[in-house]
């Protein structure tokens, strides 16, 4: 009976966790779309060279998108064991966007946009990380 109660509690908290995590996955996706547009603007206005934009796609956008796809897949399948790994990857990509790419740009709307959006996404990712039991 105790085991059954434990299973009920765990499955119930998992379902609640999933429901409350979906808006986070949506917001991270929106922010990644916005960062991508900001990077395009930086390229079109000459702040990023083509090579820098290419590097940004390879080192920031693609790994962050793949990890966010993993996050959405976890929530869809209710298999949460890989969640901390995906969240860590998203965090690292966002930090790279700020520290390696945006910081090299001259002060501009685009630079501020990339930094602000990345920081907002980092807060969402960190909050979710705490929820799944990370420290």
């Amino acid at each position: 009976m105790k085991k059954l109660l434990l299973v009920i509690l765990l499955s119930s908290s998992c379902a609640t966790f999933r429901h409350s995590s979906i808006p986070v996955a949506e917001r991270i996706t929106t922010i990644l779309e916005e960062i991508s547009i900001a990077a395009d603007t930086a390229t079109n206005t000459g702040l990023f060279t083509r090579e820098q934009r290419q590097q940004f796609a390879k080192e920031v956008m693609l790994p962050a998108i793949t990890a966010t796809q993993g996050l959405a897949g976890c929530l869809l399948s209710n298999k949460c064991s890989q969640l901390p790994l995906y969240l860590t990857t998203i965090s690292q990509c966002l930090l790279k966007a700020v520290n390696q790419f945006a910081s090299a740009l001259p002060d501009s709307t685009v630079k501020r946009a990339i930094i602000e959006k990345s920081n907002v996404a980092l807060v969402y990712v960190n909050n979710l990380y705490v929820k799944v039991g990370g420290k």
Partner: protein
Amino acid sequence: MNPLLLQVLNLAVGEVITILIRRTDISDEDRARLLAVQERLSTLKDKEQRIADGN
């Protein structure tokens, strides 16, 4: 143990398992939202992949 009590317990466990299955099953709305997220990410990934490939 009293057979009647056992029967009641069995029924209670059955009910609990039904509730459990309902709780762990994803709702249609949540599934649709997650599929929409995956669709958007897939579009964004195609775009960034083209840029990464230099196209």
